[in-house]
């Protein structure tokens, strides 16, 4: 009964989202207040219905209802409760339901927090979100119904179990966070479409849009970082980023989203870049959809390579064409009417943010080319190619390093008429400190490394030093610091930390594959890994072996690692559980290969300096974003005072 209730709720949600779209958009077009008044109840109803649907699926998982095909495929009676809940989004159908639920939650938040916006604008925003929801519900009901039953006579006694690589706490929360980011860009997209429908886009619009966009970006940052962290310790072979198509699919919206939050800053402060901001908002969400298409249609060769089903791919492709095509048509029709008052110097903050946008978009294009080239090649019937990490690690830094220098310089520039001469001292001082500190760190602690890494470390320090000048100066002069400025500073510090960490890992990682038997050691620099023993280990739904490896530094033991090799019974899958000790300056990593005979095992040992700071950096950036997005000016403002402020700022 419960699964049918879930499906019924989905059908009702489909209808409600359709109504939400019609009432929202047509109602606003006809200025019909009764129609517009129906939008918020529709949003609330839709949220309740989708919650019912996802609740029904969770119930089916928790109660081991193996008569539901999706549950039978992704759960097992030996699976712990926590993972039975996480298994809801362990595969295609459930992830879509999760996506739809998150979209409903975002829409509900918009409905609740948009009461001070003009009624027509708010209902258009919710209307556009209604179209997106409608598309996803239709997709689910047509091609990916999670509530399909197994025929009565073939109900299995037990389920096929959740893919063992997904049985992990980080991966249990990675999809919800990532989707919250993806779907959050739908809100920015809806704001953009509503502005185009209204034919009005001003600084107030940017002020409304900014916190939503920044929050979405924060979630996406943390979501990507969690995925990367998971891949590092769970896929078993070290490495935090593989330039895998599915990773790239989440990275492209992040790059464009980063451009968008910076472009929005200019639109809010100066009323410039209006049409560009709109375009970025459309692009960010389009790339989120494209990411879904790439991941879900199975067209890509990937470590994630999810279920391949051409009909699903075609549906998403069609949906993509309708959404992006529709938005771009609207853009072509309306964006020209949105004039930005011209005028800013080439070295003003406005200009630097434009350069930032150009570099970020080029970076996104490069990732796009690298990700899709194999597909295009295939479609053209040419010889199959693969674009590996090597290509990305050559091209990506070439674009990112100049951007970092621009950040370090541009951070000092004033709006409109910034002149480099005004901040010459800060630029020179920052650059000098960074060079000195960077070279000291590189040659003092690590020794000569790759050229690009040295440049990266210097640039990272430069960004950190530069972003601290202004806040420190203000604190010294006892001036107040707004939350927006604190948030921005923290986010830029995060960027600097991330760049230093990535540069260091890329250059100074030591990695060895060796054969070790009990009593044998492998030495890497000041560290050595001593293979002590190996024995059997039993888990709730797997069995395996577990080794004990002592790591010594300068001959003194510092830690004991326990890498495992697990065999999961149900899916008959072998898993490598790495042994990792995260120290403040480096990760000690060891993974167990296979029994080589003669009492020896293959072992992969790694030293990855600063790798944890890559993920920490994402968390810092997200924290900065969250602070900036909750700045006072985004809260407690009525329409009237908005107008007053805008008028005051315009003069």
């Amino acid at each position: 009964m419960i699964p049918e209730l879930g499906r019924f709720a989905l059908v009702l949600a489909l209808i409600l989202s359709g109504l939400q779209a019609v009432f929202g958009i047509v109602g606003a077009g006809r200025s019909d207040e009764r129609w517009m008044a129906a939008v918020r109840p529709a949003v609330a109803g839709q949220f309740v219905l989708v919650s019912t649907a996802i609740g029904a699926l969770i119930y089916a998982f928790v109660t081991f209802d193996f008569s539901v095909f999706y549950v039978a495929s992704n759960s097992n009676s030996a699976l712990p409760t926590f993972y039975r809940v996480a298994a809801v989004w362990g595969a295609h159908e459930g992830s879509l339901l999760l996506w739809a639920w998150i979209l409903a939650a975002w829409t509900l938040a918009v409905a609740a927090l948009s009461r001070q916006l003009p009624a027509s604008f708010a209902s258009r925003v919710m209307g556009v979100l209604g179209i997106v929801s409608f598309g996803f519900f239709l997709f689910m009901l047509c091609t990916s119904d999670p509530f399909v039953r197994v025929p009565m006579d073939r109900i299995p006694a037990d389920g096929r179990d959740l893919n063992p690589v997904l049985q992990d706490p980080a991966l249990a929360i990675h999809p919800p966070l990532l989707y919250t980011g993806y779907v959050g860009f739908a809100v920015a997209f809806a704001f953009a479409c509503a502005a185009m429908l209204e034919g009005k886009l001003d600084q107030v619009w940017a002020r409304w849009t900014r916190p939503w966009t920044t929050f979405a970006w924060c979630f996406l940052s943390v979501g990507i970082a969690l995925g990367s962290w998971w891949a590092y310790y769970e896929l078993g072979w070290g490495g935090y980023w593989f330039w895998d198509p599915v990773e790239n699919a989440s990275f492209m919206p992040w790059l464009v989203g980063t451009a968008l939050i910076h472009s929005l800053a200019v639109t809010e402060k100066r009323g410039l870049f209006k049409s560009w901001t709109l375009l970025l908002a459309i692009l960010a969400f389009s790339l989120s959809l494209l990411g879904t298409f790439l991941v879900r249609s199975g067209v890509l060769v990937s470590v994630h390579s999810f279920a391949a089903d051409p009909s699903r791919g075609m549906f998403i492709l069609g949906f993509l064409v309708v959404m992006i095509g529709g938005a771009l048509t609207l853009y072509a029709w309306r964006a020209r009417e949105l004039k930005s008052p011209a005028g800013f110097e080439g070295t003003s903050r406005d200009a630097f943010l434009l350069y930032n946008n150009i570099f970020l978009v080029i970076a996104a294009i490069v990732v796009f080319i690298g990700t899709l080239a194999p597909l295009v090649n295939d479609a053209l019937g040419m010889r199959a190619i693969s674009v590996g990490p090597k290509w990305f690690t050559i091209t990506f830094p070439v674009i990112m390093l100049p951007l970092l220098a621009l950040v370090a310089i541009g951070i000092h520039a004033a709006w409109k008429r910034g002149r480099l001469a005004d901040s010459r001292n800060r630029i020179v001082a920052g650059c000098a400190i960074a060079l000195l500190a960077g070279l000291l760190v590189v040659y003092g602690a690590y020794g000569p490394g790759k050229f690009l890494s040295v440049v990266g470390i210097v640039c990272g320090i430069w960004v950190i030093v530069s972003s601290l000048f202004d806040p420190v100066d203000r604190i010294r002069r006892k001036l107040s610091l707004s939350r927006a400025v604190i948030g921005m500073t923290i986010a830029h510090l995060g960027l600097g930390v991330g760049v230093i960490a990535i540069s260091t890992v890329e250059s100074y990682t030591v990695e060895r594959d060796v054969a070790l038997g009990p009593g044998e050691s492998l030495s890497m620099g000041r560290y050595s890994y001593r293979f002590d023993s190996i024995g059997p280990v039993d888990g709730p739904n797997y069995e395996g072996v577990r080794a004990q490896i002592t790591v010594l530094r300068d001959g003194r033991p510092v830690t004991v690692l326990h890498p495992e090799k697990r065999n999961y019974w149900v899916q008959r899958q072998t898993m490598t559980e790495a042994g990792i000790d995260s120290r403040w300056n480096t990760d000690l990593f060891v993974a167990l290969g296979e029994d080589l005979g003669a009492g020896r095992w293959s072992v992969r040992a790694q030293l990855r300096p600063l790798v944890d700071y890559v993920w920490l950096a994402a968390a810092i950036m997200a924290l900065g974003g969250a602070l900036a997005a909750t700045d006072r000016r985004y809260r407690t403002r009525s329409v009237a005072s908005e107008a007053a402020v805008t008028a005051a700022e315009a003069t």
Partner: protein
Amino acid sequence: MTPARQKRLLLVLGIVLGVGVAAFLAMQAFRSNVMFFFDPTEVAAGKAPKDDRFRLGGMVVKGSLMKTPGTLDVKFQVTDFKSTVPVTYDKILPDLFREGQGVVAHGRMHDGVFVADEVLAKHDEKYMPPEVAKSLKDHPPPPTTQAGASPTAQTGGAQ
């Protein structure tokens, strides 16, 4: 031209130039860092690059895996049921590496042997690299071989 227009023109030129240079560099990097796929038949016919790295894909011949006890060195053979290429490897084989299943290896030819520096097998047992599936479709295996019985059905992967 007014100064404002001049500035805008310069800006546009700058952007175009920047994008152009970026595209040029990207294409250059593409040439030397993109790997092409070859199946054993093409390798046997001498179509594969003599000096460059490439991707070799096919099925691991049953019973061909030879280990040297106590070391990482392994030898195995990759086949598309028409031709067979010997492969050597001295790193850790992925968990899902199995005889009789699909595999993709990166490396280069050396004296008729494919010296792999990376062997890929993805995290699902049913997974078969698409290129391998396609190549097997071009050269259908003998019907008795269970592993290659329905290569297309096996394309795809984990949930």
